[in-house]
């Protein structure tokens, strides 16, 4: 099997082309630096080809550790014997040809030296043709001595032609581009890229003018600030308002499934297990998956439209005052969906110090694993009502405040730590390429949100199932569910009860919180199982009602929310931090430090709300 190496500048559309060629669903977004590691997959239309997607770099001369990894990976790959590589495909954004060609010329030189064939995939030609523009692909191809194939990774135009070309024999570039060419002279390459763009590139600057007009709105002091606040507000409102019908649907489905399945079982432990652990534990968690779907879809909408880079510019100055950078915004926002991609996204921050500070903030971002916990407690304590003429839902507003709590806590922690650690020697300044505004593809958005939600369920589902099983067995035995308080779990729970008693929580909540240290969302499933055993009836899908009738006070509910907002309970996040920081020190410090902070602040909120309510 021959390899096809996909390389290019950040945000040139490599990963989307990779997805087109392989049929895989590598994460793509309209923001530079989304791909942070190499990925490989078999070509869908030619099984003799293996496509390898490399992270985007501006140049083969790296300036940061992450670029060094990407460039070295490429240099290692081109060490292969001639014939092992079907082609090095350099993807260039046709709407920003000069930048892409500068990198393509470097790649051409590397291929010429190693004797590998090279193809330039001139991507995003659909955008050009929409404005009656085009590049002179045959002319450019003749000039460079490498095939230039116009493609649109988004629509799929030209991709079959590219694969067909790679399946045949392509001659490696052999000639120098000009007499006395000094390949390593970056200025010469840049001049050449400029000349080639002027001769063969699209004519006119209509696209840039259109983007500048949009920037004048989204980056204006007044309209930019207001639109940023409005978009963030919309994000949190949508999680409740748009997800509500879907959540009702899932809840109904689970109820129908329970009605259909439970009659198959005779009264006894097997029926109790299915009712309490499966429908009560796992089912309670599944109800909240639509919220995760909506969250990832709205974040994806911001990424694909090109707005995210503008938000990074807006946030740079405020984040800088906390010791972060505008580039921290994207990892932090990704952290709102899940901390793990957020931590990976922090690789795009060239400054090691600001990247490290961003690592401190990400675990405090209100990730989607916290959402089921927040959703449950909001449903239990906040009425489903609207204010301001029906425009603002109280539950969405409450969620916004909870999210703000995590974000503010993250910023404060970073501000305090950066005050103590003033090392600025290795700092890298803020330079961010503005991606063009694009209309997001609805199908791609829905597919990405569907897959990310599915991944979340696949990752969390087994953990929740096993925890629910263990919790159910411990809570069911030795008296077969007759008295939860006298079960093995009841005895264990009362041992740890003193730890949670100051927050007004009984042992059941203590057990659920302890179980959540495996994964936050386990809290909901555990509580569902416990209430299921206690109630001794098939009360599926009304966990919020069960919490309300259990006598949990508002102050204790707030304490749980605050604890979950601040504690760093996710094992996957800690393991990812260890991998990225190459040490257990940072995750251990975060686990202990944030755990203590969460408990103390939750206690203070418990006292405060208890005094006011």
């Amino acid at each position, binding site marked *: 099997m021959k390899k096809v190496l996909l390389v290019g500048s950040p945000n040139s559309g490599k990963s989307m082309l990779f997805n087109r060629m392989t049929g895989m669903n590598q994460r793509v977004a309209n923001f530079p630096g989304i791909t942070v590691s190499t990925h490989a997959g078999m070509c869908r239309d030619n099984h003799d080809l293996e496509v390898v997607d490399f992270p985007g770099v501006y140049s083969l001369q790296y*300036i940061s550790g992450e670029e060094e990894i990407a460039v070295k990976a490429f240099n290692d790959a081109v060490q292969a014997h001639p014939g092992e590589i079907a082609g090095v495909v350099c993807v260039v954004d046709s709407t920003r040809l000069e930048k892409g060609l500068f990198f393509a010329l470097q790649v051409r030189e590397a291929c010429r030296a190693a004797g590998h064939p090279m193809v330039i995939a001139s991507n995003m030609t659909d955008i050009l043709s929409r404005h009656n523009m085009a590049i002179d692909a045959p002319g450019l191809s003749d000039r460079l001595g490498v095939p230039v194939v116009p493609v649109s990774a988004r629509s799929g135009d030209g991709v079959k032609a590219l694969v067909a070309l790679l399946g045949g024999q392509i001659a490696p570039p052999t000639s120098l581009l000009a007499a006395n060419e000094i390949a390593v002279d970056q200025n010469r390459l840049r001049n050449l890229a400029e000349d080639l*763009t002027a001769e063969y590139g699209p004519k006119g600057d209509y696209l840039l003018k259109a983007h*500048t007009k949009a920037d004048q709105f989204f980056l204006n002091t007044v309209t930019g600030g207001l639109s940023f606040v409005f978009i963030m507000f919309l994000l949190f409102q949508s999680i409740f308002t748009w997800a509500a019908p879907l959540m009702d649907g899932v809840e109904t489905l689970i109820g129908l499934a329970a009605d259909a399945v439970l009659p198959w079982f005779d009264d006894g432990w097997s029926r109790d297990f299915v009712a309490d652990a499966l429908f009560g534990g796992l089912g309670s968690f599944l109800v909240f998956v639509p919220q995760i779907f909506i969250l990832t879809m709205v974040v994806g909408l911001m990424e694909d439209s090109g707005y995210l880079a503008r938000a990074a510019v807006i946030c740079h100055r405020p984040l800088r005052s906390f010791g972060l950078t505008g580039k921290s915004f994207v990892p932090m926002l990704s952290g709102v969906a899940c901390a793990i991609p957020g931590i990976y996204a922090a690789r795009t921050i060239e400054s090691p110090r600001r990247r490290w500070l961003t690592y401190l903030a990400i675990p405090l971002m209100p990730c989607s694993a916290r959402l089921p916990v927040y959703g449950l407690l909001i449903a239990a304590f906040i009425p489903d009502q609207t204010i301001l003429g029906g425009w603002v839902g109280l539950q969405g507003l409450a969620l916004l405040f909870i999210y703000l709590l995590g974000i503010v806590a993250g910023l404060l922690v970073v501000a305090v730590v950066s005050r103590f650690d003033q090392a600025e020697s290795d700092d890298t300044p*803020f330079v961010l390429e*503005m991606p063009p505004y694009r209309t997001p593809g609805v199908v791609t958005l829905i597919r990405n949100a569907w897959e990310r939600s599915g991944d979340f369920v696949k990752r969390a589902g087994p953990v929740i199932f096993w925890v629910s099983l263990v919790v159910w067995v411990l809570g069911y035995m030795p008296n077969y569910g007759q008295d939860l308080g006298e079960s093995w779990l009841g005895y264990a729970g009362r041992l740890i009860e003193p730890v949670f008693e100051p927050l007004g929580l009984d042992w059941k909540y203590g057990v659920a919180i302890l179980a959540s240290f495996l994964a936050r969302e386990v809290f909901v499933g555990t509580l569902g199982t416990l209430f299921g055993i206690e109630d001794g009836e098939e009360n599926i899908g009304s966990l919020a009602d069960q919490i309300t009738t259990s006598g949990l006070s508002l102050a204790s509910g707030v304490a749980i929310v605050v604890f979950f907002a601040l504690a760093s309970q996710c094992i996957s996040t800690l393991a990812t931090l260890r991998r990225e920081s190459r040490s257990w020190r940072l995750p251990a410090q975060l686990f202990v430090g944030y755990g203590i902070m969460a408990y103390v602040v939750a206690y203070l909120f418990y006292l405060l709300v208890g005094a006011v309510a």
Partner: protein
Amino acid sequence: MINSASSLWQMRRGKSCVVTGFDASMKANIRLRLEELGFREGAVVTCSMAPSLGAPKLYQVANSVYSLEQPLAELVHIQSLHA
């Protein structure tokens, strides 16, 4: 027509300039990256957006737009162009 000398940060929205050099205090790797992006001596740069409150400004070089923060843009020397 080439006019007064100043830094990239001092440019106002819609104005163009020619890059004339870099401050000696700029690190070599940062200078290299800026040059790769197109901020080379002799390159024409247009300030396409200058948000207030110290937010990074947007600069158009060739067919790309980049956002540069104040401490960095101040190290790029320019000559303003007046039509």
